[in-house]
Every structure is written in C-alpha cells, then in structure tokens.
C-alpha cells in the first residue's frame, strides 16, 4: 500500500503559458518585420482572433482579405462555433499518459496566431515553445509521466505490475512538467543574429550588385527586365478582370488565358533568347556572389562572441521523480576572425566611402582582403573557441521508505555547482558526397575538446569540492556515428573508474537517432 503526502503545488506552466498569452497578448505581439501565420486584426485580441480562426479550417484568399476587417465582424455564430470546437476536445484524455493526439490539432490552431509560438510532439512529450525573438525564448514540456522505479522496487515483485498500473492511473494531469527560459544576449558586437549586422550585409551586397561594378551583370539584367516587363503586360491583358489569381502555378496560368499569348509568355520566360538572358543574368548573379567570398559572411557571424542564460525547472509528482531546478550561464569567446574583427580591420584600412553609412566603413574590396587573410582562413577552417560555463543544479528528490505497513517518502535535497572552462577546435575535414551538381560539402572529420571543471557537491551524505579535467578527441565515422576517445583526470578518484587512482580513460561511439535525438554507448 502506498500513502501519499498532500501534493505539492505543481508548476502547470505549459498550459498556463498558452492560456495567459491567449488572454492578454495582442494578436500581433511579434518581432518587427515578422509575418504572422494567421492575419488577425492589429488591435484584435487573440481570444477573438482564435475564435474566428477556429470557425474556418483553411481561409481562402478572399477570406484572407476579409480577415483584416475589425473585430466587429466576429459574430455570435463564430463564437458559438468556437465554443463547440472547444467542447469537442476530449480533455479528459489529457492526463497521465499525455494523450496529445486529441490535443495537438487544437493547440496548433489555438496557438497559430501568436508569432513565435509553436508546438511539437515526440515520444509522448508535448513541447510548447514561445520565441518572440531570437534573444528570448520559453519552452514548456509536458512529459509522459512514468512511475519511478525506486518506488516500484518497494513492492514485492509479484505486485509490481499491478502497482505500476494503479499508480500511473492516479497520476495528476500534469505529473511531469518542465519549463525553460533562455536569454541570449544580442548586439552588434555580441551574439550570432544576422539582423544585428543587416546594414553591413546590405552595404556589401550593394557593392556586389552595383551595375557600375559589374557591366556584364547590368547588361544581362536589362534584357531580363525587358522580358519580365513584357510578361507582366501580357498577364495583365490575358487574365480576365475580377479573376483573383493567387499563388498561381504554371499549369494554372496555361489553362486560364489565350493559348497564343501563353505560348508567347513561355517563349519569353523559357525558350527565347530574351528568356535565356533572364537565366544568364541569374547565373551571373550566382557567379558574382560565389566569387565575392560573401558566402563566408555567415561564418563570421557564427564566430561572434556569445552569452546566454538558461533557467529551467522540472516539477514532478513525488511518485514520478525529483523536482529539478537548473541555472546555467554560458560565455563563448571565439578566437580569430569574426564580424567584430572585420569592422575593426576595415575601419582602419578602408579605401573608399561606404554607402552603408558612417561607422560601417566596410566595402567589398576590404571585406575580400579580410577573408583572404591567413588568420581568417585558419579561423574559418578550425573554428577555435573558448567557453566559460557556470551551472547550478538543485534536485529536490524523494527517498522511498518501507515503514512495514506502507511505503512513504522523505524529501531530500541535493545541490551541485560547476564552473567549466573549455576550449575546442576542428582538427580536420572530410568531403561529403556531392548532391546533384553541387560541389562536395565539407564535414568535420575530427575535433578536439579540452575541459577543466571545478565542482561543488552538497548531498545529504556528501559535501565535496573536486576538480576534473577532460581531453576528448572525436573522430567522425559517418554522418550518424562518431568515435570518441577521452582522458579524464579528477582530484577525487572514486568518480573515475578502474584505470588509475586519478586518471581515467573512456572510449565509445556516439550515434544520432533521428534528427534530434542523440545517444551514446561505450
């Protein structure tokens, strides 16, 4: 028999996030420039907008235009339809087994109007993610709750299966919930968000496509311009007035107009010399981009310093497991060339005013010189970086006690704080097979990771400070499997294994499962 203490207050945040945001956020609570998935009115509350969206499965293009109308258009009938839709959801199944099958379509439609909000489901876990911008995100996860093995071990083996079924049935709706908040600091000198370098990128691309810079490109573009203008004129004349052509495909165009005119369009776009000039212009653009080294711009952005903080909490029923709170701060400091270095180098050596404006004196010629430098090439090839990571974890666990006539639990608290100093770099690359006519891609062949960690552990029966150093060599075997060899030194030998008192060695394989999962064995 199992006796439970009064249940602790549970963090039912995943659902609350959705409810709270639905009730309070304006429909366009979003990043400037981002496009909403569903067009709600600018002052329309999400609750109203969602009600309207729930009343229609796939808005037509005409409907799309009507959706810009004020909320006065939301009639009682649509509200009734929304009520019926809500009643149709079997929330009773949203319980111990996290039966998200019925919930998922509802959530998808409910949350679709909030920019940056998304849901995903994998292996019985439902994740609700809200990322209003690339700096801040909230992830709530409803886990598939399972009864803790340590609790089941308190039962006689013959009774274990029945106890597991009974206990699982009695688990609360949200018996295993986690919430994570992440803040990633972004500015023009820190963080890896391209939009923070928008003016720089625009200035460089303007230099690339300036007709005065590339006469050939300009000539080809002129021919293409004439061809496309002619096609626009034909379409304008061919399609009947009042016909709304939205997202037309080529066959739709062919069947909707005068065959002779359509044939002219086809020849302009595809077959004629002018049509060929259109393709040539595009190929000129592709060639000029490739020759400009501008494709390395994103690598320079990816090599910017980065700082982020994660705070996560996992709340579980006592029958399921421990409550865990983790706070993590990370500071990555790449070595070598990056956007900061580009700005600094080209501000000093700029040989021409830049149209991007003052303070952004980076022109294409200087950019190309910067990319061609030996140091930059080495950085792009090896991606060296230092990392400082501070983590604090508090685990409020449960120890199950057989009192003779019942199983009870006692709460115990463990605390662990870690300071990690790390360095990593790529050692070699391998060629991936080419896809279609593309160039073969480079993939990391081997990499080196060095980590020095100081740990403070405060458990019920243990209070310890220890140091640990790890050197890992990872060798790629194929896209899904890596071989890992690691040497570990620790000041407290009981954590190492068998090799030596203070030195341990580990070898193993790391393989990816699916696209996101990862597991290891050794």
């Amino acid at each position: 028999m199992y006796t439970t203490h009064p249940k602790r207050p549970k963090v039912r945040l995943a659902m609350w996030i959705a409810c709270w945001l639905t009730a309070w956020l304006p429909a366009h609570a979003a990043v400037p420039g981002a496009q909403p998935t569903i067009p709600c009115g600018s002052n329309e509350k999400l609750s109203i907008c969602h009600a309207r969206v729930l009343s229609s499965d796939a808005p037509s293009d005409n409907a799309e235009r009507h959706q810009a109308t004020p909320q006065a258009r939301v009639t009682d009938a649509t509200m009734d339809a929304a009520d019926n839709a809500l009643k149709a959801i079997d929330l009773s199944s949203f319980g111990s087994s996290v039966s998200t099958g019925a919930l998922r379509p509802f959530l998808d439609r409910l949350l679709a109007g909030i920019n940056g909000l998304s849901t995903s489901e994998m292996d019985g876990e439902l994740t609700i993610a809200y990322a209003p911008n690339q700096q801040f995100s909230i992830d709530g996860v409803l886990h598939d709750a399972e009864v803790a093995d340590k609790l089941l071990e308190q039962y006689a083996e013959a009774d274990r299966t029945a106890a597991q079924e009974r206990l699982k049935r009695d688990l609360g709706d949200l018996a295993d919930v986690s919430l994570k908040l992440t803040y990633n600091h972004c500015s023009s000198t820190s963080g890896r968000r391209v939009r923070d370098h928008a003016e720089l990128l625009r200035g460089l691309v303007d230099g690339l496509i300036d007709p005065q810079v590339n006469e050939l490109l300009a000539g080809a573009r002129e021919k293409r311009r004439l061809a496309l203008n002619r096609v626009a004129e034909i379409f304008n004349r061919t399609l009947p007035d009042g016909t709304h052509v939205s997202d037309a495909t080529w066959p739709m165009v062919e069947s909707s107009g005068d065959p002779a005119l359509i044939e002219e369009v086809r020849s302009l776009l595809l077959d004629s010399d002018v049509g060929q000039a259109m393709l040539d212009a595009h190929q000129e653009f592709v060639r000029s981009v490739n020759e400009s080294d501008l494709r390395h711009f994103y690598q320079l952005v990816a090599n910017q310093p980065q700082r982020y903080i994660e705070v996560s909490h996992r709340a579980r029923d006592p029958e399921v497991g421990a409550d865990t709170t983790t706070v993590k701060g990370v500071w990555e400091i790449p070595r070598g060339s990056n956007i900061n270095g580009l700005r600094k180098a080209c501000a000093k050596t700029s040989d021409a005013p830049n149209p991007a404006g003052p303070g952004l004196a980076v022109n294409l010629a200087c950019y190309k010189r910067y990319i061609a430098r030996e140091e930059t090439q080495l950085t792009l090839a090896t991606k060296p970086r230092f990392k400082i990571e501070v983590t604090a974890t508090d685990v409020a666990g449960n120890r199950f006690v057989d009192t003779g006539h019942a199983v009870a639990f006692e709460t115990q608290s463990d605390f662990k704080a870690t300071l990690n100093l790390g360095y990593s770099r790529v050692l070699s690359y391998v060629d991936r097979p080419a896809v279609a006519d593309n160039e073969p891609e480079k993939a990391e062949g081997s990499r080196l990771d060095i980590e020095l960690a100081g740990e403070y552990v405060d458990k019920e029966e243990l209070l310890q400070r220890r140091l640990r150093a790890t050197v890992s060599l990872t060798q790629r075997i194929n896209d899904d499997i890596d071989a890992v060899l690691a040497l570990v030194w620790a000041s407290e030998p009981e954590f190492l294994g068998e090799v030596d008192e203070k030195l341990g060695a580990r070898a193993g394989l790391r393989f990816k499962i699916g696209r996101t999962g990862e597991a290891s064995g050794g």
Partner: protein
Amino acid sequence: MAHTAIYRFIRGTPLGADITITLSAEAQGIFVAEAWDVSRDAIGNEETRTAVRRTALVPGEASDLGPATPPAVLVVEGVFDQKLTPDQDKVVVKVGDQKRTIPLDGDQDDSIMAVVFVSP
C-alpha cells in the same frame, strides 16, 4: 536548367501599394530583391517608364521596396550558404494588404530566382 524560377502572381493591387519583402530568419545566403514598375501610355501599349528598386535581403528583416505602380515585376534571387527545408527558406512578399509566401525550393541548385507579377 529548364525552369529555374518560381512564379507567383498578385492581382488587384491598388496604385501606390507598399511592397515589403521578408526573408525567413533561418535562411542563410546572399539574397537580393528588385522591383520594376511598368508604366504605359494612354492607349496601354507603349512602355514609357520603368523604375528599378533594389535591396539586399537580410534574414529575419523586412525590406521595403517602396510603392508599387502596377503592373510591376518583383524578382527575388539568391545563393544559399546552407540549404535548409522549404519551411525555413522562404520569402514573404507583401504588396498592400495582400501577402504571398514563396518557398525557395525551386530546384536542386544552390541558387534560386522567384518572380512575382503584380497587376491592378
């Protein structure tokens, strides 16, 4: 390379409607957008004036191409640094109140051209 471009059409655009083009935040590569106005004389046959507006697209940033004078042609083209999925590589073209989302999955190449015809 028989068909390298993706074509879309936006009709019913009023004179002077603003054009905004947004490249998805996940896209990586060098992309540009250009717009041409096509104006004709009173009898509607002779092309008398064109204007070109051009801008580089930055992932996650809305680019303003100014007011459209339909009929107009928009061209979006780019070279991918890293080819993602059509859900991630896309442009959203907004002309006035109308909006079209164009997945950039036109071919197996690492470059793309999308053409949007805008007409009254």
